[in-house]
Protein backbone atom coordinates (compact mmCIF):
# COMPACT_ATOMS: atom_id res chain seq x y z
CA UNK A 1 0.00 0.00 0.00
CA UNK A 2 2.81 2.42 -0.54
CA UNK A 3 2.19 5.28 -2.84
CA UNK A 4 4.87 7.81 -2.06
CA UNK A 5 5.17 10.13 -4.98
CA UNK A 6 8.13 12.22 -6.00
CA UNK A 7 8.91 14.98 -3.59
CA UNK A 8 10.82 17.28 -5.89
CA UNK A 9 8.63 18.97 -8.39
CA UNK A 10 9.34 21.73 -10.83
CA UNK A 11 6.70 24.33 -11.49
CA UNK A 12 5.96 25.36 -15.02
CA UNK A 13 3.73 28.41 -15.06
CA UNK A 14 2.10 27.28 -18.28
CA UNK A 15 -0.78 24.89 -17.65
CA UNK A 16 -3.40 23.99 -20.20
CA UNK A 17 -3.17 22.44 -23.62
CA UNK A 18 0.57 22.07 -23.65
CA UNK A 19 0.31 19.86 -20.61
CA UNK A 20 -2.57 17.88 -22.02
CA UNK A 21 -0.73 17.14 -25.22
CA UNK A 22 2.35 16.15 -23.31
CA UNK A 23 0.37 13.78 -21.14
CA UNK A 24 -1.25 12.07 -24.09
CA UNK A 25 2.12 11.66 -25.78
CA UNK A 26 3.57 9.91 -22.79
CA UNK A 27 3.25 6.17 -22.90
CA UNK A 28 2.71 5.69 -19.21
CA UNK A 29 0.01 8.30 -19.16
CA UNK A 30 -1.65 6.64 -22.10
CA UNK A 31 -1.74 3.23 -20.46
CA UNK A 32 -2.94 4.74 -17.20
CA UNK A 33 -5.66 6.73 -18.94
CA UNK A 34 -6.86 3.75 -20.92
CA UNK A 35 -7.10 1.63 -17.79
CA UNK A 36 -8.94 4.35 -15.96
CA UNK A 37 -11.30 4.90 -18.86
CA UNK A 38 -12.03 1.19 -18.92
CA UNK A 39 -13.00 1.20 -15.28
CA UNK A 40 -15.08 4.31 -15.67
CA UNK A 41 -17.07 2.59 -18.37
CA UNK A 42 -17.56 -0.46 -16.17
CA UNK A 43 -18.71 1.71 -13.32
CA UNK A 44 -21.05 3.79 -15.45
CA UNK A 45 -22.92 1.04 -17.24
CA UNK A 46 -22.35 -2.25 -15.46
CA UNK A 47 -25.74 -3.50 -16.52
CA UNK A 48 -24.69 -3.52 -20.15
CA UNK A 49 -21.50 -5.41 -19.60
CA UNK A 50 -22.14 -7.86 -16.83
CA UNK A 51 -24.04 -10.90 -18.09
CA UNK A 52 -25.78 -11.71 -14.83
CA UNK A 53 -27.11 -10.23 -11.61
CA UNK A 54 -24.11 -10.19 -9.30
CA UNK A 55 -26.01 -11.09 -6.16
CA UNK A 56 -28.09 -13.87 -7.66
CA UNK A 57 -27.11 -17.16 -6.09
CA UNK A 58 -28.52 -19.19 -8.87
CA UNK A 59 -25.57 -20.99 -10.37
CA UNK A 60 -23.72 -24.04 -9.30
CA UNK A 61 -21.17 -22.97 -6.69
CA UNK A 62 -17.41 -23.24 -7.09
CA UNK A 63 -17.40 -23.65 -10.84
CA UNK A 64 -14.16 -23.08 -12.69
CA UNK A 65 -13.78 -20.59 -15.53
CA UNK A 66 -15.85 -21.26 -18.62
CA UNK A 67 -17.38 -19.39 -21.50
CA UNK A 68 -20.47 -18.77 -19.41
CA UNK A 69 -18.59 -17.73 -16.31
CA UNK A 70 -15.30 -16.14 -17.26
CA UNK A 71 -13.96 -16.42 -13.77
CA UNK A 72 -16.13 -19.14 -12.43
CA UNK A 73 -18.63 -18.87 -9.60
CA UNK A 74 -18.40 -18.17 -5.91
CA UNK A 75 -19.07 -20.52 -3.05
CA UNK A 76 -22.60 -19.17 -3.02
CA UNK A 77 -23.25 -19.75 -6.66
CA UNK A 78 -22.77 -16.18 -7.90
CA UNK A 79 -21.00 -15.21 -11.09
CA UNK A 80 -17.59 -13.81 -10.29
CA UNK A 81 -17.27 -11.77 -13.49
CA UNK A 82 -20.57 -9.96 -12.91
CA UNK A 83 -19.55 -9.21 -9.36
CA UNK A 84 -16.30 -7.74 -10.59
CA UNK A 85 -18.05 -5.50 -13.07
CA UNK A 86 -20.66 -4.28 -10.59
CA UNK A 87 -18.06 -3.86 -7.91
CA UNK A 88 -16.20 -1.31 -9.97
CA UNK A 89 -18.70 1.36 -9.11
CA UNK A 90 -17.98 1.39 -5.41
CA UNK A 91 -14.24 1.48 -5.82
CA UNK A 92 -14.34 4.29 -8.34
CA UNK A 93 -16.81 6.26 -6.27
CA UNK A 94 -14.61 6.04 -3.22
CA UNK A 95 -11.55 6.93 -5.27
CA UNK A 96 -13.07 10.04 -6.77
CA UNK A 97 -14.98 11.15 -3.70
CA UNK A 98 -12.02 10.84 -1.39
CA UNK A 99 -9.68 12.20 -4.04
CA UNK A 100 -11.88 15.24 -4.48
CA UNK A 101 -12.46 15.89 -0.80
CA UNK A 102 -8.82 15.42 0.14
CA UNK A 103 -7.64 17.63 -2.70
CA UNK A 104 -10.01 20.44 -1.85
CA UNK A 105 -8.95 20.35 1.77
CA UNK A 106 -5.29 20.11 0.84
CA UNK A 107 -5.53 23.15 -1.40
CA UNK A 108 -7.48 25.18 1.13
CA UNK A 109 -5.24 24.40 4.03
CA UNK A 110 -1.90 24.20 2.28
CA UNK A 111 -2.17 27.35 0.23
CA UNK A 112 -3.79 29.37 3.02
CA UNK A 113 -1.14 28.35 5.49
CA UNK A 114 1.59 29.49 3.15
CA UNK A 115 -0.18 32.65 2.13
CA UNK A 116 -1.26 33.75 5.59
CA UNK A 117 2.02 33.02 7.26
CA UNK A 118 2.76 33.78 10.86
CA UNK A 119 0.74 32.19 13.64
CA UNK A 120 -1.98 30.88 11.34
CA UNK A 121 0.66 29.11 9.34
CA UNK A 122 2.25 27.73 12.47
CA UNK A 123 -1.01 26.31 13.75
CA UNK A 124 -2.13 24.91 10.42
CA UNK A 125 1.25 23.34 9.82
CA UNK A 126 1.26 21.72 13.22
CA UNK A 127 -2.18 20.26 12.65
CA UNK A 128 -1.12 19.07 9.21
CA UNK A 129 1.98 17.39 10.57
CA UNK A 130 0.18 15.67 13.40
CA UNK A 131 -2.50 14.32 11.09
CA UNK A 132 0.15 13.30 8.62
CA UNK A 133 1.92 11.20 11.16
CA UNK A 134 -1.09 9.38 12.54
CA UNK A 135 -1.61 6.31 10.36
CA UNK A 136 -5.07 6.44 8.85
CA UNK A 137 -5.70 2.76 8.50
CA UNK A 138 -5.57 1.94 12.22
CA UNK A 139 -7.66 5.02 12.90
CA UNK A 140 -10.29 3.90 10.44
CA UNK A 141 -10.23 0.45 12.01
CA UNK A 142 -10.84 1.99 15.42
CA UNK A 143 -13.78 3.93 14.07
CA UNK A 144 -15.15 0.88 12.35
CA UNK A 145 -14.77 -1.05 15.57
CA UNK A 146 -17.04 1.32 17.41
CA UNK A 147 -19.49 1.69 14.62
CA UNK A 148 -19.88 -2.03 14.06
CA UNK A 149 -19.11 -1.64 10.38
CA UNK A 150 -17.81 1.17 8.26
CA UNK A 151 -20.44 2.31 5.85
CA UNK A 152 -19.64 4.07 2.62
CA UNK A 153 -20.20 7.58 3.93
CA UNK A 154 -18.05 7.02 6.98
CA UNK A 155 -15.25 5.74 4.82
CA UNK A 156 -15.35 8.70 2.47
CA UNK A 157 -15.59 11.24 5.24
CA UNK A 158 -12.80 9.76 7.32
CA UNK A 159 -10.43 9.05 4.46
CA UNK A 160 -11.04 12.48 3.01
CA UNK A 161 -10.81 14.22 6.34
CA UNK A 162 -7.43 12.69 7.04
CA UNK A 163 -5.96 12.16 3.63
CA UNK A 164 -5.27 15.78 2.78
CA UNK A 165 -2.22 16.25 4.93
CA UNK A 166 0.43 15.07 2.49
CA UNK A 167 -0.93 17.20 -0.32
CA UNK A 168 -1.32 20.18 1.98
CA UNK A 169 2.32 20.00 2.94
CA UNK A 170 3.47 19.94 -0.66
CA UNK A 171 1.14 22.70 -1.73
CA UNK A 172 2.24 24.81 1.16
CA UNK A 173 5.92 24.51 0.35
CA UNK A 174 5.24 25.17 -3.32
CA UNK A 175 3.21 28.27 -2.47
CA UNK A 176 5.93 29.46 -0.12
CA UNK A 177 8.52 29.18 -2.84
CA UNK A 178 6.34 31.29 -5.08
CA UNK A 179 5.36 34.01 -2.66
CA UNK A 180 7.89 36.43 -3.92
CA UNK A 181 7.78 35.70 -7.57
CA UNK A 182 7.46 38.69 -9.80
CA UNK A 183 4.08 37.98 -11.28
CA UNK A 184 2.59 37.83 -7.80
CA UNK A 185 4.19 41.10 -6.85
CA UNK A 186 2.71 42.55 -9.98
CA UNK A 187 -0.73 41.37 -8.97
CA UNK A 188 -0.35 42.85 -5.54
CA UNK A 189 0.81 46.13 -6.94
CA UNK A 190 -2.21 46.18 -9.19
CA UNK A 191 -4.22 46.09 -6.01
CA UNK A 192 -5.81 42.70 -6.47
CA UNK A 193 -7.38 41.19 -3.41
CA UNK A 194 -5.76 38.27 -1.63
CA UNK A 195 -8.41 35.80 -2.71
CA UNK A 196 -8.04 36.80 -6.33
CA UNK A 197 -4.32 36.37 -6.15
CA UNK A 198 -4.69 32.94 -4.65
CA UNK A 199 -7.30 31.65 -7.04
CA UNK A 200 -6.27 33.22 -10.32
CA UNK A 201 -2.55 33.63 -10.02
CA UNK A 202 -1.21 30.94 -7.72
CA UNK A 203 -3.47 27.96 -8.30
CA UNK A 204 -3.04 27.74 -12.07
CA UNK A 205 0.67 27.26 -11.66
CA UNK A 206 0.18 24.36 -9.34
CA UNK A 207 -2.11 22.27 -11.51
CA UNK A 208 0.39 19.44 -11.71
CA UNK A 209 0.71 19.33 -7.94
CA UNK A 210 -3.02 19.44 -7.47
CA UNK A 211 -3.56 16.66 -9.97
CA UNK A 212 -0.88 14.64 -8.23
CA UNK A 213 -2.58 15.15 -4.89
CA UNK A 214 -5.86 13.99 -6.35
CA UNK A 215 -4.35 10.89 -7.92
CA UNK A 216 -2.43 10.05 -4.79
CA UNK A 217 -5.48 10.40 -2.58
CA UNK A 218 -7.58 8.34 -5.01
CA UNK A 219 -5.01 5.57 -4.99
CA UNK A 220 -4.76 5.45 -1.27
CA UNK A 221 -8.54 5.51 -0.89
CA UNK A 222 -8.96 2.49 -3.16
CA UNK A 223 -6.30 0.53 -1.32
CA UNK A 224 -7.46 1.49 2.15
CA UNK A 225 -11.10 0.78 1.42
CA UNK A 226 -10.23 -2.60 -0.05
CA UNK A 227 -8.08 -3.40 2.94
CA UNK A 228 -10.80 -2.43 5.35
CA UNK A 229 -13.42 -4.49 3.59
CA UNK A 230 -11.04 -7.39 3.34
CA UNK A 231 -10.65 -7.67 7.10
CA UNK A 232 -14.38 -7.61 7.46
CA UNK A 233 -14.79 -4.11 8.77
CA UNK A 234 -16.57 -2.79 5.74
CA UNK A 235 -20.17 -3.53 4.95
CA UNK A 236 -20.13 -7.22 4.05
CA UNK A 237 -23.33 -6.91 2.11
CA UNK A 238 -22.07 -4.21 -0.18
CA UNK A 239 -20.88 -4.94 -3.66
CA UNK A 240 -17.21 -4.14 -4.02
CA UNK A 241 -13.93 -5.77 -4.76
CA UNK A 242 -12.85 -5.62 -1.15
CA UNK A 243 -15.94 -7.46 0.07
CA UNK A 244 -15.44 -10.06 -2.63
CA UNK A 245 -12.00 -10.69 -1.23
CA UNK A 246 -13.48 -10.90 2.25
CA UNK A 247 -16.00 -13.54 1.28
CA UNK A 248 -13.42 -15.43 -0.72
CA UNK A 249 -11.10 -15.51 2.25
CA UNK A 250 -13.92 -16.56 4.54
CA UNK A 251 -14.65 -19.50 2.31
CA UNK A 252 -11.03 -20.50 1.93
CA UNK A 253 -11.34 -19.95 -1.77
CA UNK A 254 -7.67 -20.40 -2.51
CA UNK A 255 -7.42 -23.74 -0.88
CA UNK A 256 -10.78 -24.91 -2.15
CA UNK A 257 -9.89 -24.39 -5.77
CA UNK A 258 -11.92 -21.22 -6.36
CA UNK A 259 -8.73 -19.48 -7.31
CA UNK A 260 -10.19 -16.86 -9.64
CA UNK A 261 -12.67 -15.69 -7.05
CA UNK A 262 -9.84 -15.06 -4.64
CA UNK A 263 -7.46 -13.44 -7.07
CA UNK A 264 -9.46 -11.38 -9.56
CA UNK A 265 -10.81 -8.71 -7.18
CA UNK A 266 -7.23 -8.11 -6.11
CA UNK A 267 -6.18 -7.84 -9.72
CA UNK A 268 -8.84 -5.19 -10.26
CA UNK A 269 -7.72 -3.21 -7.25
CA UNK A 270 -4.15 -3.49 -8.43
CA UNK A 271 -5.07 -2.37 -11.96
CA UNK A 272 -7.06 0.62 -10.80
CA UNK A 273 -4.30 1.53 -8.41
CA UNK A 274 -1.76 1.09 -11.16
CA UNK A 275 -3.77 3.39 -13.41
CA UNK A 276 -3.60 6.16 -10.80
CA UNK A 277 0.04 5.48 -10.10
CA UNK A 278 0.98 5.55 -13.80
CA UNK A 279 -0.87 8.78 -14.37
CA UNK A 280 0.83 10.25 -11.35
CA UNK A 281 4.24 9.19 -12.54
CA UNK A 282 3.56 10.50 -16.00
CA UNK A 283 2.55 13.85 -14.55
CA UNK A 284 5.86 13.99 -12.77
CA UNK A 285 7.61 13.57 -16.07
CA UNK A 286 5.49 16.22 -17.72
CA UNK A 287 6.15 18.79 -15.05
CA UNK A 288 9.83 17.98 -14.71
CA UNK A 289 11.37 17.55 -18.14
CA UNK A 290 14.61 16.33 -16.67
CA UNK A 291 12.89 13.09 -15.78
CA UNK A 292 12.13 12.19 -19.36
CA UNK A 293 14.23 9.83 -21.40
CA UNK A 294 17.55 11.39 -22.44
CA UNK A 295 17.68 12.36 -26.08
CA UNK A 296 20.49 11.57 -28.46
CA UNK A 297 21.88 14.30 -30.70
CA UNK A 298 21.60 13.42 -34.41
CA UNK A 299 24.87 14.23 -36.13
CA UNK A 300 24.16 16.82 -38.81
Amino acid at each position, binding site marked *: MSAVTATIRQVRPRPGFGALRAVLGNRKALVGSVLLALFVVLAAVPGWIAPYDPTAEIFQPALGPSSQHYFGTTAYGQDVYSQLVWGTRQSLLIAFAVGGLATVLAVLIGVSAAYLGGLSDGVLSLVTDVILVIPIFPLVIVLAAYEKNAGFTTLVVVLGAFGWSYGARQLRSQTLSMRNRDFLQAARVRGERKLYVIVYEILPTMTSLIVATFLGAALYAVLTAAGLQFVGLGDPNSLSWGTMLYWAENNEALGAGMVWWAIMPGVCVALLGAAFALLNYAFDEVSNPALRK*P*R*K*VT*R*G
Partner: protein
Amino acid sequence: MAERLLEVRGLRVAYASDRGPVIPVENVDLDLDRGEFLAIVGESGCGKSTLLYAIARLLGPPNAGEIIGGSIVFRGQEMATLDEQQLRHIRWRELSVVMQSAMNALNPVLSIGSQLEDACRAHSTMGKREIAQRSQDVLRLVGIDPIHLRSYPHQLSGGMRQRAMIAMALLFTPDLVIMDEPTSALDVVAQRSLMKQIRELQDRLGFAVIFVTHDMSLVSHFSDRLVVMYAGEIVEVASTRQCFDNPLHPYTQGLLDAFPSIHGPKRRLLGIPGAPPDLVRLPAGCRFAPRCPQRSDRCETPPPVVDVDGDVVRCVLYDRAGVAV
Protein backbone atom coordinates in the same frame (compact mmCIF):
# COMPACT_ATOMS: atom_id res chain seq x y z
CA MET B 1 57.54 35.76 -24.05
CA ALA B 2 53.94 34.80 -24.59
CA GLU B 3 53.36 31.11 -25.10
CA ARG B 4 50.27 29.66 -26.71
CA LEU B 5 48.28 27.88 -24.01
CA LEU B 6 45.00 27.11 -25.71
CA GLU B 7 44.07 26.85 -29.35
CA VAL B 8 40.46 26.22 -30.31
CA ARG B 9 39.60 25.64 -33.95
CA GLY B 10 36.21 25.18 -35.51
CA LEU B 11 34.45 24.15 -32.32
CA ARG B 12 30.82 23.14 -32.73
CA VAL B 13 28.43 22.11 -30.02
CA ALA B 14 24.94 20.73 -30.50
CA TYR B 15 22.15 19.57 -28.30
CA ALA B 16 18.81 17.94 -28.93
CA SER B 17 15.63 19.85 -28.23
CA ASP B 18 11.94 19.21 -28.71
CA ARG B 19 12.08 21.09 -31.96
CA GLY B 20 15.15 19.63 -33.51
CA PRO B 21 18.91 19.89 -33.06
CA VAL B 22 20.20 23.22 -31.80
CA ILE B 23 23.74 24.49 -32.35
CA PRO B 24 24.58 26.94 -29.56
CA VAL B 25 28.26 27.15 -30.52
CA GLU B 26 29.10 27.40 -34.21
CA ASN B 27 32.57 27.18 -35.67
CA VAL B 28 34.47 28.97 -32.91
CA ASP B 29 38.17 29.79 -33.19
CA LEU B 30 39.94 30.99 -30.09
CA ASP B 31 43.51 31.52 -28.92
CA LEU B 32 44.82 32.04 -25.45
CA ASP B 33 48.35 32.77 -24.26
CA ARG B 34 49.88 31.93 -20.93
CA GLY B 35 48.91 34.39 -18.21
CA GLU B 36 46.40 36.17 -20.41
CA PHE B 37 43.01 37.42 -19.22
CA LEU B 38 40.46 36.80 -21.93
CA ALA B 39 36.88 37.95 -21.52
CA ILE B 40 33.98 36.51 -23.51
CA VAL B 41 31.00 38.83 -23.59
CA GLY B 42 27.56 38.60 -25.10
CA GLU B 43 23.86 38.57 -24.34
CA SER B 44 22.18 35.80 -22.39
CA GLY B 45 21.73 32.81 -24.61
CA CYS B 46 24.52 33.68 -27.05
CA GLY B 47 26.33 30.49 -26.21
CA LYS B 48 29.21 31.87 -24.19
CA SER B 49 28.69 29.62 -21.18
CA THR B 50 28.21 26.63 -23.44
CA LEU B 51 31.47 27.49 -25.17
CA LEU B 52 33.21 27.71 -21.83
CA TYR B 53 32.01 24.38 -20.61
CA ALA B 54 32.72 22.79 -23.97
CA ILE B 55 36.34 23.89 -23.69
CA ALA B 56 36.49 22.43 -20.20
CA ARG B 57 34.81 19.25 -21.45
CA LEU B 58 32.07 19.70 -18.89
CA LEU B 59 28.97 19.63 -21.03
CA GLY B 60 26.15 17.54 -19.65
CA PRO B 61 24.12 16.07 -17.98
CA PRO B 62 22.35 14.60 -20.99
CA ASN B 63 20.46 17.11 -23.14
CA ALA B 64 22.89 19.87 -22.38
CA GLY B 65 25.04 19.33 -25.42
CA GLU B 66 27.94 17.53 -26.91
CA ILE B 67 30.87 18.56 -29.07
CA ILE B 68 30.20 17.60 -32.65
CA GLY B 69 33.25 19.06 -34.34
CA GLY B 70 36.42 21.02 -34.03
CA SER B 71 39.55 20.76 -31.93
CA ILE B 72 40.68 22.04 -28.57
CA VAL B 73 44.43 21.97 -28.14
CA PHE B 74 45.44 22.70 -24.58
CA ARG B 75 49.14 22.78 -23.72
CA GLY B 76 49.81 21.03 -26.95
CA GLN B 77 47.36 18.21 -26.28
CA GLU B 78 44.14 17.61 -28.17
CA MET B 79 41.38 17.66 -25.59
CA ALA B 80 38.28 17.25 -27.68
CA THR B 81 38.75 13.54 -28.11
CA LEU B 82 40.02 12.55 -24.70
CA ASP B 83 37.86 10.26 -22.61
CA GLU B 84 36.94 10.87 -18.97
CA GLN B 85 39.83 8.82 -17.61
CA GLN B 86 42.36 10.82 -19.58
CA LEU B 87 40.64 14.09 -18.84
CA ARG B 88 40.90 13.45 -15.15
CA HIS B 89 44.67 13.95 -15.31
CA ILE B 90 44.18 17.45 -16.64
CA ARG B 91 41.26 18.40 -14.47
CA TRP B 92 42.01 20.76 -11.64
CA ARG B 93 45.76 20.35 -11.92
CA GLU B 94 46.03 22.28 -15.12
CA LEU B 95 42.53 23.55 -15.71
CA SER B 96 40.04 24.56 -13.05
CA VAL B 97 36.61 26.11 -13.00
CA VAL B 98 34.86 28.84 -11.04
CA MET B 99 31.12 28.87 -11.45
CA GLN B 100 28.48 31.50 -11.24
CA SER B 101 26.86 30.85 -7.91
CA ALA B 102 28.91 29.35 -5.14
CA MET B 103 25.74 28.54 -3.26
CA ASN B 104 24.88 26.16 -6.07
CA ALA B 105 28.38 25.08 -6.97
CA LEU B 106 29.48 24.01 -3.52
CA ASN B 107 28.14 20.78 -2.14
CA PRO B 108 25.78 21.86 0.66
CA VAL B 109 26.41 18.83 2.83
CA LEU B 110 30.18 18.92 2.92
CA SER B 111 32.40 21.36 4.77
CA ILE B 112 34.70 23.68 2.83
CA GLY B 113 37.63 21.73 4.15
CA SER B 114 36.24 18.43 2.85
CA GLN B 115 35.64 19.91 -0.55
CA LEU B 116 39.19 21.19 -0.72
CA GLU B 117 40.43 17.89 0.56
CA ASP B 118 38.73 15.69 -1.99
CA ALA B 119 40.22 17.68 -4.83
CA CYS B 120 43.63 17.24 -3.26
CA ARG B 121 43.16 13.55 -2.79
CA ALA B 122 41.92 13.01 -6.30
CA HIS B 123 45.03 14.42 -7.92
CA SER B 124 47.95 13.97 -5.59
CA THR B 125 49.39 11.79 -2.91
CA MET B 126 49.48 14.51 -0.29
CA GLY B 127 49.19 13.38 3.26
CA LYS B 128 46.62 14.64 5.72
CA ARG B 129 48.83 17.31 7.16
CA GLU B 130 50.00 18.55 3.78
CA ILE B 131 46.41 18.80 2.63
CA ALA B 132 45.46 20.77 5.70
CA GLN B 133 48.41 23.09 5.19
CA ARG B 134 47.65 23.62 1.53
CA SER B 135 43.96 24.24 2.28
CA GLN B 136 44.82 26.88 4.84
CA ASP B 137 47.31 28.52 2.50
CA VAL B 138 44.86 28.71 -0.30
CA LEU B 139 42.13 30.22 1.88
CA ARG B 140 44.52 32.83 3.18
CA LEU B 141 45.40 33.64 -0.39
CA VAL B 142 41.88 34.90 -0.96
CA GLY B 143 41.54 36.51 2.41
CA ILE B 144 39.45 33.92 4.25
CA ASP B 145 40.32 32.90 7.80
CA PRO B 146 41.37 29.23 7.75
CA ILE B 147 39.03 28.53 10.60
CA HIS B 148 36.33 28.32 7.96
CA LEU B 149 37.65 25.00 6.78
CA ARG B 150 35.14 23.58 9.18
CA SER B 151 32.29 25.76 7.95
CA TYR B 152 29.57 24.68 5.61
CA PRO B 153 28.67 26.69 2.53
CA HIS B 154 25.43 28.00 3.95
CA GLN B 155 27.31 29.47 6.89
CA LEU B 156 29.44 31.79 4.76
CA SER B 157 28.47 35.09 3.21
CA GLY B 158 28.00 35.31 -0.56
CA GLY B 159 31.28 37.06 -1.18
CA MET B 160 33.18 34.63 1.01
CA ARG B 161 31.66 31.70 -0.82
CA GLN B 162 32.78 33.02 -4.18
CA ARG B 163 36.26 33.59 -2.85
CA ALA B 164 36.28 30.10 -1.38
CA MET B 165 35.49 28.78 -4.85
CA ILE B 166 38.39 30.74 -6.28
CA ALA B 167 40.64 29.42 -3.54
CA MET B 168 39.56 25.92 -4.45
CA ALA B 169 40.31 26.58 -8.10
CA LEU B 170 43.85 27.58 -7.20
CA LEU B 171 44.69 24.49 -5.17
CA PHE B 172 47.14 23.23 -7.76
CA THR B 173 47.96 26.63 -9.29
CA PRO B 174 46.66 25.53 -12.67
CA ASP B 175 47.65 27.09 -15.95
CA LEU B 176 44.08 28.02 -16.85
CA VAL B 177 41.14 29.02 -14.70
CA ILE B 178 37.84 29.43 -16.47
CA MET B 179 35.20 31.54 -14.82
CA ASP B 180 31.52 31.59 -15.65
CA GLU B 181 30.10 34.93 -14.48
CA PRO B 182 31.52 34.50 -10.98
CA THR B 183 30.51 37.98 -9.91
CA SER B 184 26.94 38.24 -11.06
CA ALA B 185 25.58 36.93 -7.77
CA LEU B 186 27.32 39.73 -5.88
CA ASP B 187 26.61 43.41 -5.30
CA VAL B 188 28.54 46.03 -7.24
CA VAL B 189 31.12 46.77 -4.58
CA ALA B 190 31.85 43.11 -3.95
CA GLN B 191 32.07 42.57 -7.70
CA ARG B 192 34.81 45.14 -8.12
CA SER B 193 36.73 43.87 -5.15
CA LEU B 194 36.56 40.30 -6.39
CA MET B 195 37.76 41.34 -9.85
CA LYS B 196 40.72 43.15 -8.35
CA GLN B 197 41.56 40.15 -6.27
CA ILE B 198 41.40 37.85 -9.29
CA ARG B 199 43.74 40.14 -11.20
CA GLU B 200 46.18 40.31 -8.29
CA LEU B 201 46.24 36.56 -7.93
CA GLN B 202 46.77 36.26 -11.64
CA ASP B 203 49.77 38.56 -11.52
CA ARG B 204 51.16 36.65 -8.60
CA LEU B 205 50.60 33.10 -9.75
CA GLY B 206 50.67 33.50 -13.51
CA PHE B 207 47.55 31.58 -14.54
CA ALA B 208 45.46 32.45 -17.57
CA VAL B 209 41.79 33.33 -17.20
CA ILE B 210 38.84 32.93 -19.53
CA PHE B 211 36.09 35.05 -18.05
CA VAL B 212 32.54 34.87 -19.31
CA THR B 213 30.19 37.74 -18.57
CA HIS B 214 27.31 39.73 -19.98
CA ASP B 215 28.66 42.88 -18.39
CA MET B 216 31.25 44.48 -20.63
CA SER B 217 31.99 47.36 -18.33
CA LEU B 218 32.99 44.96 -15.60
CA VAL B 219 35.86 43.49 -17.53
CA SER B 220 36.90 46.69 -19.23
CA HIS B 221 39.61 47.40 -16.67
CA PHE B 222 40.77 43.88 -16.12
CA SER B 223 40.85 41.90 -19.31
CA ASP B 224 43.66 41.82 -21.86
CA ARG B 225 41.51 40.74 -24.76
CA LEU B 226 37.82 40.66 -25.44
CA VAL B 227 35.80 38.14 -27.43
CA VAL B 228 32.31 39.16 -28.44
CA MET B 229 29.79 36.44 -29.17
CA TYR B 230 26.42 36.60 -30.82
CA ALA B 231 23.97 33.79 -31.51
CA GLY B 232 26.59 31.11 -31.16
CA GLU B 233 29.25 32.75 -33.28
CA ILE B 234 32.22 34.90 -32.48
CA VAL B 235 31.71 38.28 -34.10
CA GLU B 236 34.75 40.15 -32.85
CA VAL B 237 38.04 39.52 -31.09
CA ALA B 238 40.18 42.47 -30.05
CA SER B 239 42.40 43.78 -27.31
CA THR B 240 40.24 45.40 -24.66
CA ARG B 241 41.59 48.85 -25.35
CA GLN B 242 41.02 48.52 -29.09
CA CYS B 243 37.55 47.16 -28.55
CA PHE B 244 36.46 50.07 -26.44
CA ASP B 245 38.22 52.74 -28.46
CA ASN B 246 37.36 51.43 -31.88
CA PRO B 247 34.74 48.69 -31.97
CA LEU B 248 34.56 47.13 -35.41
CA HIS B 249 31.43 44.98 -35.45
CA PRO B 250 28.06 46.77 -35.38
CA TYR B 251 26.97 44.54 -32.51
CA THR B 252 29.97 45.55 -30.41
CA GLN B 253 29.27 49.16 -31.24
CA GLY B 254 25.71 48.66 -30.09
CA LEU B 255 26.87 47.07 -26.82
CA LEU B 256 29.21 49.92 -26.09
CA ASP B 257 26.59 52.49 -26.90
CA ALA B 258 24.50 50.98 -24.18
CA PHE B 259 27.10 51.86 -21.56
CA PRO B 260 27.52 55.60 -21.51
CA SER B 261 30.54 56.94 -19.71
CA ILE B 262 29.85 58.67 -16.44
CA HIS B 263 32.28 61.36 -17.35
CA GLY B 264 31.34 62.09 -20.90
CA PRO B 265 28.69 64.40 -22.28
CA LYS B 266 25.04 63.50 -21.85
CA ARG B 267 23.69 61.51 -24.76
CA ARG B 268 20.74 59.31 -25.55
CA LEU B 269 20.88 55.81 -24.25
CA LEU B 270 20.71 53.47 -27.21
CA GLY B 271 19.86 49.84 -26.97
CA ILE B 272 19.93 47.30 -29.73
CA PRO B 273 16.40 46.89 -31.05
CA GLY B 274 14.99 43.41 -31.55
CA ALA B 275 15.95 40.14 -29.92
CA PRO B 276 18.54 37.43 -30.56
CA PRO B 277 17.47 34.88 -33.19
CA ASP B 278 15.82 31.58 -32.41
CA LEU B 279 18.66 29.09 -32.66
CA VAL B 280 16.42 26.58 -34.39
CA ARG B 281 15.50 29.01 -37.13
CA LEU B 282 18.58 30.99 -37.99
CA PRO B 283 18.79 33.51 -40.82
CA ALA B 284 20.68 32.25 -43.85
CA GLY B 285 23.30 34.98 -43.90
CA CYS B 286 24.65 37.08 -41.08
CA ARG B 287 22.92 36.24 -37.84
CA PHE B 288 22.98 39.81 -36.63
CA ALA B 289 21.62 41.29 -39.84
CA PRO B 290 17.95 41.57 -38.71
CA ARG B 291 19.01 43.94 -35.94
CA CYS B 292 21.95 45.63 -37.60
CA PRO B 293 21.71 49.38 -38.33
CA GLN B 294 24.22 48.92 -41.15
CA ARG B 295 22.73 45.97 -42.91
CA SER B 296 22.66 45.64 -46.66
CA ASP B 297 22.02 43.07 -49.36
CA ARG B 298 25.48 41.58 -48.88
CA CYS B 299 24.42 40.40 -45.45
CA GLU B 300 22.30 37.67 -46.92
CA THR B 301 25.33 35.48 -47.37
CA PRO B 302 27.34 34.35 -44.38
CA PRO B 303 29.89 37.11 -43.68
CA PRO B 304 33.60 36.36 -43.86
CA VAL B 305 35.90 36.38 -40.88
CA VAL B 306 38.44 39.13 -41.48
CA ASP B 307 41.66 40.08 -39.75
CA VAL B 308 41.89 43.83 -39.17
CA ASP B 309 45.17 44.96 -37.63
CA GLY B 310 45.44 41.95 -35.42
CA ASP B 311 41.79 42.04 -34.44
CA VAL B 312 39.30 39.61 -35.85
CA VAL B 313 35.81 40.53 -37.00
CA ARG B 314 33.01 38.67 -38.75
CA CYS B 315 31.31 41.23 -40.91
CA VAL B 316 30.81 42.10 -44.58
CA LEU B 317 31.75 45.67 -43.80
CA TYR B 318 35.42 44.73 -43.84
CA ASP B 319 36.98 43.18 -46.90
CA ARG B 320 39.72 40.62 -46.91
CA ALA B 321 42.43 43.22 -46.81
CA GLY B 322 41.15 44.43 -43.50
CA VAL B 323 39.90 47.67 -44.82
CA ALA B 324 36.53 49.07 -43.93
CA VAL B 325 34.28 49.16 -47.01
